[in-house]
Every structure is written in C-alpha cells, then in structure tokens.
C-alpha cells in the first residue's frame, strides 16, 4: 500500500469523492516537505557538529541548546539574502538549473521504501526509476555552471557532469547485481526478499561474496555521484572558489546545498534498502511481533510495526550518512585523472566481474545464500 492509497483510505471519514490524484500530490508534498527538506536542513547542522568533533572544536553552539536551531537561522538567512547574478548571466537557464537539481534529488524519494506501508509509489521498476531521476542532477549542475558566466563555475560544472556520467556505470552495475540475485526491481519486494524467515535468508550484502564486494563499489560510486569528498572536484574550494555554485546566492545556493544533502540521504536510503535489508533486523521478523495493544477496538500492531520499521530503516541510512561525513574529514581530494582512472580502470571492471560472479552463484547454488549453504552443511553433518 502506498502513502497515497493510505491517505485516500482516510478519506472514507470525510465527505465526498476527492479524486485519487489529489492524494498522490498530497503524498508527494508530505514526503518532500515533511521528510526530505527538514532532514536536508538538519543534516547541515549535523555535518557541522561532526566536522567540529573531528577537528576538536565545539561547532555551532549559540542558537538554541547545543546550537540545534542553527539550521533554522541558516534557512532564514538564505531566504532573506539578496538574489544576485553576474551581469552576463543567462537568466532563464540560471533560474532553471537549481530547480532541475532539486527535482532530480527529491523526485527519487518517491520510490524509497521507508517501511512496508510508507512508500511514495511501489513501482515495478523501483531501482531503475531512482537511477533515472538521480541522473537529472548532472544536467542541473552543468547548466547552472554554464549560465553563471564564470570560468570557475564552468570548470566545476564540466568536472561534475563528466564525473556523474562516468560513475553512473559502476553504480548501475552494482545495483544490477542485486537485481540478478533477487529477481525483482520493485523496492518493496527486494527488501522483503531479505526478511529473516528462520531459514537463513538474510541481507543481500551477506548473500554471496560478490555482492559483498559490490556494496563497496556502490558506496564509492555513490560518493562520487553526490560530489562528496574525496570526489568533491566540482566544488573543490582550494582550486575553483566554490565550483559550479560559485555565483549562486540566497535560496538558489540553498537549493544546491539542499539537493546535495538530499542526494546523500537518497543514496544512503537506497544502500540501506538494497544491501542492508531495509527495515529487517537479523534473527527477528518485525511483522511477526504482536503486542496485542488496541485502541477503540482496533489493533495498534500495524502502526507500531510501521513505526519500528521506519526507525530501523532510517537508523541504517543515518549510519551510512555518518560514514560519508566521517570520510569528508579523513581523505584528501583526488585529482581529475585519478578520479577517471578509479572509475574506468578499477570500479567498472570490478563491478562487471562481480555481476558475472553473482549471476554464476545464483545459477550454481540455485539462489541460496552463503548462510543457507553453511547451515545446510551443518545440518547434514
């Protein structure tokens, strides 16, 4: 059941016949305004705090307790700041570009499965849709960079587009190897294939050695897709001022920053859903837990299960986001040629090898995971 269907179910209590697409739009607004945007804002605060911890500083600590309202202050500042542009900027494309980036980054959230029942749309081609929407980001970066009529921006934009187009290949192949193993592209079905059923079916990262390696290929490629350190060449501060978003100010810059964080969170959510079992925990199946609480004759179990699923899913995703922030203060930036070498000479061959390996594993062992094979041998011996 998608979020839109859930909302239209609530409509039974309220008078008449609101068409279904109103609920679809309402669900989109809820996911974007209620989840992606606030988390993007909070992430800027967390990133600054994490950075401060790594550098043994205090970080933002003036606005509210522990500086927790800092992101509100930043947001208000962004909204009130004068919206400037360079004299020769191409205003039509300059206005269009931040929107394209944001649309790509936020649109992909439609197919992210937060729990079994909370998903924008359970598409048959879930993973493929996420990949397709994520590729829109490169367009926004390239157009924004060109239209702002600044050589630093243009260099950054060229780097960004080349980087994103290149790293889409290992990213897609790493995800494809999971599709080969699960036989599904729908996000909900992929996550459900990783449920703990007592027979040893487990997270896909531990399904076979090839998928284990491909998780790291996915992680490195996703880092490059979101332009995060060590792959932040498009906005390399020490070389290009601020790269593709140098000339943007006010909320236009805010949209670029927000889209970057939304991208990081989106790729972390995909990693959690595809490789790390989504809302499933090892040794327990949450759908089998029944507390038996009820309110006004209705069982509260589905609600409690859904809340737990969302918490577990977001917990896994936030661990990955933390690792991304950790890497930012640990690794130095790559050069352009090293970046391309890493993609074309290492990641793509490794990803292809793992794809073939995972296909052979599924064919030889009839889709059983490592754990099933080991427990089968123990049972036989």
């Amino acid at each position, binding site marked *: 059941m998608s979020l839109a269907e859930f909302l239209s179910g609530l409509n039974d209590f309220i008078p008449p016949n609101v068409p279904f697409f109103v609920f679809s739009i309402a669900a989109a607004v809820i996911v974007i305004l209620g989840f992606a945007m606030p988390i993007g804002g909070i992430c800027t605060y967390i990133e600054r705090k994490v950075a401060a911890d790594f550098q043994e500083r205090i970080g933002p600590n003036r606005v509210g307790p522990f500086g927790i309202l800092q992101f509100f202050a930043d947001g208000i500042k962004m909204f009130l700041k004068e919206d400037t542009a360079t004299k020769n900027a191409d205003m039509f494309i300059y206005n269009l570009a931040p929107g394209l980036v944001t649309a790509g980054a936020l649109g992909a959230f439609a197919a992210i499965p937060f729990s079994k029942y909370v998903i924008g749309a359970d598409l048959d081609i879930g993973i*493929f849709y996420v990949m397709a929407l994520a590729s829109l980001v490169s367009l926004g970066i390239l157009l924004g960079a060109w239209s702002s009529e600044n050589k630093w921006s*243009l260099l950054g934009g060229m780097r960004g587009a080349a980087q994103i187009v290149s790293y889409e290949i290992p990213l897609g192949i790493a995800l494809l190897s999971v599709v080969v193993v699960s036989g599904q592209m729908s996000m909900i079905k992929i996550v459900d294939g990783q449920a703990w059923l007592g027979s040893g079916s487990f997270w896909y990262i531990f399904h076979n050695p090839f998928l284990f390696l491909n998780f790291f290929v996915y992680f490195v490629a996703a880092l490059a897709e979101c332009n995060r350190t060590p792959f932040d060449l498009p906005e390399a501060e020490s070389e290009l001022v601020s790269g593709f978003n140098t000339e943007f100010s006010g909320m236009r810059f805010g949209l670029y920053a927000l889209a970057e964080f939304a991208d990081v969170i989106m790729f972390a959510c995909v990693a959690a859903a595809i490789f790390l079992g989504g809302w499933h925990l090892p040794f327990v199946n949450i759908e089998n837990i029944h507390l038996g609480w009820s309110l006004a004759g209705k069982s509260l179990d589905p609600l409690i299960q859904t809340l737990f699923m969302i918490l577990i899913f977001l917990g896994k995703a936030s661990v990955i986001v933390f690792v991304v922030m950790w890497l930012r203060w640990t690794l130095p930036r790559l050069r352009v040629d090293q970046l391309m070498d890493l993609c074309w000479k290492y990641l793509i061959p490794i990803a292809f090898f793992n794809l073939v390996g995972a296909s052979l594993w599924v064919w030889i062992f009839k889709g059983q995971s490592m754990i099933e094979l080991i427990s089968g041998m123990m049972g036989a011996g």
Partner: protein
Amino acid sequence: MSFLDFFVVFCFLGGVVCSAVVALHPNILYAAVALIGSLLAVAGVYASLGADFLAAAQLIIYVGGVIVVILFAVMMSESIYKRRFLDGVKKMFLPTILSIALMLGMFKLLVSTNWGELRIPNYENTTIRIGQALTGPYALIFEYVAIVLLFGLIGAIVVARPNILKKDQDGGNS
C-alpha cells in the same frame, strides 16, 4: 477529464511546443535545453501507456546521458549567442517540404487506421517480458546492436587518442 487524460494531453502539448523550440530557436543552447523538455514529454507518454521500463530508460539514456554530451559539445562551441544556425531561408526550404510530407503521411495513417475500442492500458509488469524478448526471439538483434555500440566506443577512443600514442612512441625512441 481524469488525471491520466490531463497528463497525456499535457505531455503531448509540452512535447510539441518543446520540439518546435528545438527546431526554430536561434540559440543552440536553448534548443538543447528544449530538447530535455521534449524527451521528458515522450517519457511521459510512454509512462501513461504503461511502458514504465521504457519511460525510465528514456530518462536515464537520453536525458541523463545523450543530452549531457550534447550540452558539452554546445558549451564548447564559440559564441553561442551570435551564431544563428538557421541562417537563410534557403536552408529551411527542403526540411520544411520533407516534414510537411511526413506529417501528411502520418495524418493519413491516423485517419485510415481502425483504432477499435479505446481502453485504459493494462499496468502490468513489463520488465519481465522485455527481458524474455531480448534474450529470446530478439537475442541476435540485441547482440548485433551491442557489437555496433562496442565498435562505436572503440572508434571514439581511437579518434580521441592519436596524439598520446605518438608521444609515447617518441618517448620510446629518445
């Protein structure tokens, strides 16, 4: 008017307007940006016909890949604002006649076809059938296209590299 009807009309109108801009706008960069819109509209038409896989493939290959390459080429070209690639009425003469002939042909096809009963498409899983078709009856064509693409890739590398090879040979000789 259901939401689907609205969506289809929106896609068709958007596609036509954007294609007209692609063909007629004097600035090549704007033409390239309008091409994004017309490709997105085509993806929307695919999606409303129930071909979800095709729609996502349209997005990932054309919008995410081909358009980025086109934009690269356009941005590298000099003086985008001055160049009018539609210079002169002469160059518009033949394409106009050809496209009017094509439009008349398609219109005839539209009128003469028996469309039968209009029905809402069946939204079922198309991915499995596409996969089976590509590895079954169309396997040979699929492989053939793959080899053509591989040749294209190798050809591009060869065209882009001669200077580097020469330098390497010089380095070896000295």
